[in-house]
């Protein structure tokens, strides 16, 4: 099961420290355009949503790449890019339903989240715990537990009102 970064948009305050940490980790400069995780301001929803790679189990980008530049890293099972093989043809970007693959502005190869070799910097930098690194089955468990807590809080409030 692939590890990936679980995003809880509710907690995200849009401080962008995740994006800055990410660009520094990979390119030694604080540059929002080089980030692999982009907290997007969603005007219609009125909230920030950090968007990054979902580390798919059957990645479409890996299948379509004409240079086999995208592969699954053995150790971290993250989907990573070999910079020297990538020719920047954007086929991966076209097929990714989340539009995650982005071409590095000045280096010309595709950049995406590679889980920083197992300990993502954005998760460590996020002051609001909006990001967490999880296995996909833990993620389901964690979501269910959160939903259960909310439900339990709700029922308590109703029973107080009723009594």
């Amino acid at each position, binding site marked *: 099961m692939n590890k990936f970064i679980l995003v809880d948009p509710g907690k995200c305050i849009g401080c962008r420290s995740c994006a800055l940490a990410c660009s520094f980790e990979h390119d030694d400069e604080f540059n929002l355009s080089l980030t692999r995780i982009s907290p997007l301001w969603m005007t219609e929803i009125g909230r920030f949503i950090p968007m990054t790679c979902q580390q798919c189990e059957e990645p479409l980008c*890996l299948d379509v*790449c004409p*240079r*086999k530049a995208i592969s699954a890293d053995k150790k971290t099972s993250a989907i990573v890019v070999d910079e*020297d093989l990538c020719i920047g043809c954007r086929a991966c970007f076209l097929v990714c339903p989340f539009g995650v693959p982005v071409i590095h502005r000045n280096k010309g190869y595709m950049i995406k989240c590679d889980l920083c070799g197992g300990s993502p910097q954005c998760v460590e930098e996020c002051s609001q715990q909006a990001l967490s690194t999880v296995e996909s089955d833990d993620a389901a468990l964690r979501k269910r537990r959160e939903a259960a807590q909310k439900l339990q809080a709700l029922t308590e409030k109703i029973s107080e009102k009723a009594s």
Partner: protein
Amino acid sequence: MVTKEPYPLYSACILADYIADRIPRQRVFLRTAEDYARAGIELMLARPVLDWSPERHMLYFDDGALRYDRLVIATGSRPLIPPVPGIEKDGFVALKTLRDADLLRMAHGKNAVVVGTGPVGIEAAIALRHRGWSVSVVEMLDRVLPRLFDLPLANTLKNRLEKRGINIFLDEKVLEILGGTRVEGVQTDRRALPADVVVWVIGMRPELTLLNEGQLLLGASGGIAVDRHMQTTQEGVWACGDCVESEDLVSGCTGLFMLWHNARLQGRIAGANAAGAGKRYPGSVNITTINVFDEAAASVGTLASEVSPGERKVLHRRSPWGELYLVLKDTCLMGVQAVGRTERVGGLIGIMLQGKDLRKTLVRASSPADGPGLGILRNVRKDLLHLFG
């Protein structure tokens, strides 16, 4: 930049067009002396390097020496000429450099014999035929372009050449070059062929006369062994181009892949690393395209003859406008050869590199995420699935 060539950079691939008089001589050059000056490169032409001392970082010419801090060896390749009697005669040309092309361009006569049917040989034969010579081609193996095409497509190209008046003699070895000071003919193990000019292109070997014994580690194939950064086993020395051994991305085996685009990509990386960058060369995609009388043919990956018979599967599709030849190992695509619409060769490189089980991919419904390559396979889906059994 030091070279024994008396000219700045010119394109070896386009010499055939120059010999055929399709393009003027200056179109062969890719750089002029001013380009080098503008780029701040000191160009030392016609200065063959006779000796090299890695310890003292020195290069020795016949009239001087040159000290270096960083060295990039790009000596390329030289024609393979076995000790056949009569190769010193006038009119015997081992086609490699622009000087050889000039000789062929100026040559007068009626009959020409081309020995060897690699891409250079075939294009030279077509060029001479284009200028009205009667051309015969002698090949030791059983098919033309033996390293690029398997028998079926090689025969298609052979018929096409013969239809345009080029006589092709397969399974024949050249024993001797006949004639006095000038070439008059070629004696093979079966016949004697009249020839005013002999174009000898049976293959290339890395040009390593510069190296003495043990100075640089050589790979099994005879090319200089380099790591992913094109660095040799000698500190501060990089190497690139035809003289280097590299890894074929499709089949994974290492060997000599003397192609124009490999040399250019490796050159860029070796140069950058010599200047301190950390670029890596991922390996070579050995796609070769050849124009046989304005019908293109291309090939990439392993030949059917190189796959073990047990696992080998082949799909050959003929149609009025071209042919497609897929080489598979069980259900993985290993090689593609095409005559006519050659874009299908490039399109399938991605799928070959993936090395995926085609049976699974083809059974899955087509989706917008399929690249163009899969479209080719879907169009021959029934035959492929039939092949897989």
